[in-house]
């Protein structure tokens, strides 16, 4: 899992600040807060593989909304494009925008084979609140991306670890 990515399980992602789909400045650490978080980097609205993978995340969103976890998607699309894409998908989470490509370079996640769009390598990181990577998936090939079951397994593991009351209190 995660071969070819600069971050693997146990590594800590650096914090960074980017505009969201509405142009508000957001810091990754504040977005993650105190919850398990799925951070997804994607090529852009135009990629069929991303469109298909987003449908998986949209389906999972209906469970995530009651599970005290967070989703963050990150691409080089500018805010107006991200806002339109997000609305069309029906996504109810935050999209971060790196049109200047400062963060994609800083994270070492630029997809070098696409010199037209200079996008992010598609990847999924399940993060702990301290930005430590619990699991990483390299989605350059579509089958490298996590299934919904794999994400549920990862979110369960992080939640179990960070919630002191995972085991229901007993009398």
């Amino acid at each position: 899992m995660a071969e070819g990515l600069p971050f693997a399980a146990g590594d800590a992602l650096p914090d960074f600040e980017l505009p969201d789909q509405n142009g508000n400045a957001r810091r990754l650490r504040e977005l993650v807060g105190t919850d398990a978080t799925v951070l997804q980097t994607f090529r852009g609205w135009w990629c069929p593989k991303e469109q298909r993978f987003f449908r998986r995340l949209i389906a999972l969103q209906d469970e995530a909304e009651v599970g005290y976890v967070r989703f963050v998607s990150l691409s080089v699309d500018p805010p107006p494009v991200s806002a339109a894409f997000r609305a069309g998908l029906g996504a109810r989470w935050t999209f971060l925008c790196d049109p200047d490509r400062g963060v994609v370079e800083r994270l070492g996640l630029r997809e070098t084979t696409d010199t037209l769009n200079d996008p992010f390598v598609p990847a999924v990181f399940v993060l702990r609140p301290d930005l430590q990577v619990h699991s990483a998936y390299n989605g350059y090939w579509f089958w490298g991306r996590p299934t919904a079951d794999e994400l549920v397994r990862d979110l369960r593991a992080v939640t179990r670890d960070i919630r002191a009351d995972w085991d229901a209190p007993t009398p």
Partner: protein
Amino acid sequence: MTERCWLALVDEPPHAAAAAAELAEPDGAPAGWLAAWMQRAKPVRSALRVDPRIVDPRGDRGWVSLVLVPPGFALPFDDLAVQQARRDVLARPPARAVSTLLRDSSHFQGAITVTDQRRDADPFARLAPRRVLRVGRGLFGRPAPPVGPTIERYGSANPWPWDRYG
């Protein structure tokens, strides 16, 4: 969290409030005061719990969409219609600030949405009567929008979208 944040519509500028601002109808007619308190006990009979992050004594003027469930009616916070309103808030461009309003741990008593410009759409307005009012300086800030997709409260005593336990 020992202190709670309370919000109430009152006739006169309140004593001991953490922040307060004058209200006006859209045509400019006075509409009382909206005040916030940070304390454990309820400050006035009509006060409701609100997400403390929306309160900022340095906040700018704006507009509020104030949805209040009428006295005598009870709407469970977990009602499907209340859930859908929270989803709709996350799906739309964010307001300057938003919070549900709670009287207890089980019921939705209303919501307040703060914007810089008047906004007619408010998902919570499908649930209960709404007033659209001008609000003066000194009460509402500009907290970070909810990250999404969580629609649940972090503990039943905390107004959504407050986003952490404790």
